[in-house]
């Protein structure tokens, strides 16, 4: 059975439902408790620092310190406790697991932080060079274990914390390469059911976990000794790790999984990406989907611009309307000018130049030669010209001018403006249609030298 990675970890520190109500009632008390604990534990902490190592009094002070922090430890199956074992492995739930174990069974754990020596030993850390790579760690661990006077080494083969409720992560094999025998133990963390604050949540720092431990009335760590497991003849470190994982899981009534530390890191990255997408709506897939719908209707507007508007409207139709009516904050670029005609139309260029030459040349002397070689008019000129042509409804007025300059029938059908009302637009449409047919007719007659009454007779 595979456990989905989502189920392995606690995401929310706070409970939901009625427990949240109790939490709110408890909060003032919790804050007072938090402050008191900080003051008392600071003093005890300083006292422990100055007290000599490995003395009873220091041990007592530390025990009181942890109790003040609300960290209480209970042992189970003490008959399996074996103090001669040099390596202890447990599952990993909070950053304080090793402190809890060290209260009942003196031990140290490889330090993940660069702490000063005194603080490090007070917190049961030992610098074994974790940050300098696996090989250094292995060598340092071997050197440490060869010294029989040192307390045993506590390892968390999972490499990262889980919620401790469902499954164990894959046990890393390096912890099992060091020595033949390990003392296997399980850690369980309990908090009062009325205030079920999670001991550690996904992505939380140790400081946050500590603050909530000080806030909670009590955090009970149960250390269950499962027994010593010896590496069999010919058993690889991987197989040994799997066996220890299975033993631990069954003792804690959990299942096993194959998720590794790297999987957890990936999962946290994925969550961070999703959170970023939620915080920045421009990145959300929902907005992207809507933007594509808008772009189907308005292909000339960039997807970014559409998204910016969609973030406000959250509505495809509203955004389309905004762009069409110009209600957007930024200027909308005009649709890109399309080529007049595909290249394979042989007449595209001459047709264009004949359109550029004006039908309203003031003097008839500007003949076809000059009009065909005249440079293209500026857009304003062009608009005025074509608009004038489109707006002249009577064929006679245009015939009088265009008749004088052959081959200059405007084939541009553009209107000066896009009418506001349907009637206006339809009238303009009809007029421009008539104009186009009329101009084509003139051009045809001109070209074929026809004698048609009303045109050239």
């Amino acid at each position, binding site marked *: 059975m595979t456990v989905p990675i989502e189920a392995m970890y606690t995401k929310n520190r706070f409970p939901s439902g009625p427990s949240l109500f109790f939490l709110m009632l408890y909060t003032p008390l919790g804050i007072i408790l938090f402050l008191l604990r900080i003051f008392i534990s600071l003093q005890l902490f300083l006292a422990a620092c100055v007290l000599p190592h490995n003395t009873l009094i220091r041990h007592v002070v530390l025990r009181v310190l942890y109790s003040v922090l609300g960290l209480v430890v209970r042992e189970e199956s003490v008959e399996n406790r074996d103090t001669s074992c040099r390596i202890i492995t447990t599952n990993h739930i909070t950053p304080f697991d090793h402190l809890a174990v060290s209260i009942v069974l003196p031990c140290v754990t490889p330090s993940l932080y660069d702490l000063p020596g005194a603080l490090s030993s007070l917190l049961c850390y030992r610098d074994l060079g974790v940050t300098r790579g696996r090989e250094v760690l292995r060598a340092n661990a071997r050197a440490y274990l060869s010294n029989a006077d040192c307390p045993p080494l506590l390892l968390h083969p999972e490499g990262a914390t889980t919620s401790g409720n469902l499954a164990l992560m894959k046990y890393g094999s390096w912890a099992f390469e060091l020595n033949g025998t390990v003392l296997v133990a399980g850690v369980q963390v309990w908090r009062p059911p009325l205030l079920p604050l999670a001991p550690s949540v996904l992505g939380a720092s140790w400081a946050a976990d500590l603050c909530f431990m000080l806030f909670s009335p009590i955090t009970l760590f149960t250390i269950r000794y499962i027994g010593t497991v010896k590496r069999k003849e010919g058993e690889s470190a991987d197989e040994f790790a799997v066996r220890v994982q299975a033993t631990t899981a069954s003792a804690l009534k959990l299942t096993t999984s194959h998720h590794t530390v790297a999987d957890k890191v990936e999962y946290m990255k994925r969550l961070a990406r999703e959170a970023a997408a939620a915080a920045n709506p421009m990145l959300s897939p929902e907005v992207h989907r809507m933007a594509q719908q808008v772009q*189907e209707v308005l292909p000339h507007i960039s997807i970014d611009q559409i998204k910016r508007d969609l973030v406000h409207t959250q509505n495809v139709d509203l955004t389309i309307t905004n762009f069409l009516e110009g209600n957007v904050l930024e200027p909308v670029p005009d649709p890109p000018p399309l080529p007049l005609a595909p290249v*394979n139309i042989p007449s595209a260029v001459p047709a264009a130049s004949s359109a550029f030459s004006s039908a309203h040349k003031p003097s008839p002397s500007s003949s076809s030669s000059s009009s065909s070689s005249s440079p293209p008019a500026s857009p304003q000129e062009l608009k005025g010209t074509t608009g004038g042509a489109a707006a002249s409804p009577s064929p006679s007025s245009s015939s009088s001018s265009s008749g004088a300059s052959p081959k200059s029938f405007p084939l541009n059908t553009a209107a000066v403006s896009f009418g506001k009302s349907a009637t206006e637009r339809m009238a303009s449409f009809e007029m421009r249609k008539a104009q186009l047919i009329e101009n084509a007719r003139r051009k045809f007659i001109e070209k074929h030298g026809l004698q048609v009454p009303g045109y050239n007779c």
Partner: protein
Amino acid sequence: MAGRALKRLMTEYKQLTLNPPEGIIAGPTNEENFFEWEALIMGPEGTCFECGVFPAKLIFPPDYPLSPPKMQFTCEMFHPNIYSDGRVCISILHAPGDDPMGYETSAERWSPVQSVEKILLSVVSMLAEPNDESSANVDAAKMWRDDRDQFNKIAEKLVRKTLNLSYP
């Protein structure tokens, strides 16, 4: 859905009204039904259809622009790629997937980024250069291949018809 189609058609209408390609005009026949357009296409210069102004109607589906419109000439036409009833056989009017002729590449198929303007420009280039491989009118295709003079004569007759000029 139809609301979006309507908005898109309005945008295209505006674009075609203010900035149309040379010799092309298109718009709704009657704005009470925005899904039925009329277009006038002028035959490209230097071809046998030169100066002819050919009317056509465009019928848009309610899910435009997801689906392409249908285009049909409303005047008499004689062209290898136009059916005798005026329907235009051109790849841009087909959505990718339905391929009546079987050899169109999907690059020139209908998609929402195409537009009425692109359809009409494609039709203009089709008038200039018939594709006699996908013939919708076999007679026209045959004549285009074998008897170009006769084809040109028929084309000129059609051109004169659209201009309401009698053929000598």
